[in-house]
């Protein structure tokens, strides 16, 4: 079977996802459940009704943003796996402005959003600076920053943002700082449009501007970038800041753009792991902002459908994350599909 060259990335991504599903099916089967039943429940849960579909989009919203964090890093030649921590701080920043700083409607929503993005970007500056001027490996430093961010955010949430009388969560966002709910039967809000818009802006920036060109050049070939007069430190900082803005927005979206809590849990339970999930989304989306949007819908469907799978078949929805890992693992093998294609051609 021959596929046109331009479609190859798409078919390969989908094939890898299919491979992940098969591997996940084996796991489900190994632990004594029926993969067919599980996946049927998953599909029904994700796409069965209008509200399921909207809920899928609600799950997709933060994923397309954390995917952007990873993707922009890869495009600049960096492994920024700090979306997790940047997202925590973004959620804290948004919660603070949305819940504790009264402002007029309209302005308030924008201010809370920007506060979240700024907090994420600021947190991203730590590994950025360590990388640019100390050569510290970004994988280790971003992971360490994630753990520090976890404890710092819980500390801030409990000591400064806690809702009086309710230890388990922070003050909710004031009504002026909430994104409008798009449909009462789901948790999808207008923050989806902000997320998609931001991804498109990043796309236009990376492929349509001089600075974006230089960023991608540094990722594609660092020596050629030096030849072209690109300063590597600037690229490192720029890509981390863009990634931090995206992750910060992702964190904010879960507080001011996701009913019913409209707040951050003290355990950070409503944001944890969304950052790591973004890695798989980014890879399936071929580290492209637009690809990331599409892949996020796919992973959003897995997350939403996973809930019905857990409820009906008893397969823990956490399995979806294991599946995500398998997909990332498979995406790491560039030869996989080349090898397979050659086998098939023979």
């Amino acid at each position: 079977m021959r596929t046109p060259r331009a479609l190859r990335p798409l078919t390969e991504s989908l094939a890898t996802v299919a491979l992940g599903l098969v591997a996940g099916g084996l796991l489900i089967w190994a632990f004594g459940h029926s993969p067919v039943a599980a996946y049927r429940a998953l599909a029904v849960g994700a796409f069965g009704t209008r509200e399921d579909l909207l809920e899928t989009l609600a799950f997709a919203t933060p994923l397309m943003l954390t995917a952007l964090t990873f993707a922009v890093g890869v495009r600049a030649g960096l492994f920024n796996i700090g979306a997790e921590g940047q997202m925590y701080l973004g959620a804290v920043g948004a919660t603070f402005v949305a819940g504790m700083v009264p402002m007029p409607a309209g302005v308030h929503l924008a201010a809370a959003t920007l506060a979240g993005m700024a907090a994420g970007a600021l947190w991203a500056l730590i590994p950025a600076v360590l990388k640019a001027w100390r050569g510290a490996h970004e994988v280790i430093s971003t992971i360490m920053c994630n753990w520090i961010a976890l404890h710092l955010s819980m500390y801030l949430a409990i000591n400064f943002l806690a809702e009086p009388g309710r230890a388990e969560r922070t003050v909710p966002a004031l009504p002026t700082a909430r994104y409008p709910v798009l449909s009462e039967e789901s948790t999808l809000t207008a923050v989806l449009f902000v997320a998609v818009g931001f991804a498109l802006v990043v796309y236009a920036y990376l492929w349509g501007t001089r600075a974006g060109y230089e960023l991608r050049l540094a990722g594609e070939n660092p020596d050629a970038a030096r030849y072209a007069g690109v300063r590597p430190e600037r690229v490192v900082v720029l890509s981390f800041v863009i990634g931090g803005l995206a992750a910060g927005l992702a964190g904010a979206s879960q507080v001011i753009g996701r009913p019913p809590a409209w707040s951050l849990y003290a355990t950070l339970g409503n944001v944890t792991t969304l950052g790591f999930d973004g890695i798989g989304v980014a890879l399936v989306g071929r580290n492209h902002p637009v690809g990331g949007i599409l892949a996020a819908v796919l992973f959003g469907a897995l997350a939403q459908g996973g809930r019905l799978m857990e409820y009906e078949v008893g397969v823990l929805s956490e399995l979806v994350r294991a599946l995500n890992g398998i997909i990332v693992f498979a995406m790491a093998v560039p030869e996989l599909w080349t090898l397979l294609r050659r086998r098939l051609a023979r």
Partner: protein
Amino acid sequence: MRWVWWLVAAAVLVGAPRLLERAGLPPVSLLETGLLAMTPLALAAVGECLNEKAGLVNIGLEAIFMVSATVAVWFAEVGRSGYTGLLGGAAVGALLGLGLGAVSVYGRADQIIAGMGLNVFALGFVPFLLISLWAFPGIHVFPNELMVPRVSTPVGQVSPVTLAAVALAVLAHLLLHRTVLGFRIRAVGEKPEAVDVAGLRVDRLRLLTATVGGALAGLGGAFLPLGWFGALVKEISAGRGFIALACVVFAGLEPLLALGAALLFGLADGFASAVAVTPGVKERVPFYFVAMIPYALTLGVVAAVIGRRRFPSTVGRPYARE
């Protein structure tokens, strides 16, 4: 430059006990905790030193910690012995290491992405396992008699696994620098082409180190519940896999130095836990900041030392004949 850091570390080791005594933290129990915390880091770091010397990098140590810890407890319960658990953990670690090695060697995978894939997988698979095996999502406490018993030594109660970790570090050092196999491992990391044209198998050497590295990390993971905590939670490794990676970098891939680095980080961990539980101290420092200590230290070390280290020229790069 490196010796300055070791000098600083030595000064801290000598000076710290006095200060701690005055602050109400008993140094002996601190050392005991420090050695416990050192053990998984040392095991994983020593294995990863071998692995990186051969030109592979395993970012998935964290995943191996998590999965091995869980599976080890299951093995211990089935085999009714902590030692069975340790073996099971090491075996699972070896398998995961081998798998990662295989995709790196034969699939020419991007090793960082593959390793992160393993980590994300563990993030979902471990909670799934906890539910599937014990139908209990939070914490699983296993019978105390499954714990690997500690032995009395001049420096306090020490786990035999800790002693094994020290011995393994020495063995790894001897292997690398005193044997033909180590000679070949160092060669394959620096110049796989040379090993290939010499008629040796690049793939086998790398699979070997990936598997051994995985097994050591698996042993470290098994040690977390069976030798240290006495219980299982899903976030049991809490970033230790990455701290072990930092130890490897800090040590410039030398197993003995990695052991030292692991001790340093272990003591920081021990210090943090001591501060968190000691009356009179714990009230004054918010727990969250204490919990940050190991991570902040790692971040500082990574920022302070690295950059100028010499690494085998092919770490993380797949080898292929043109």
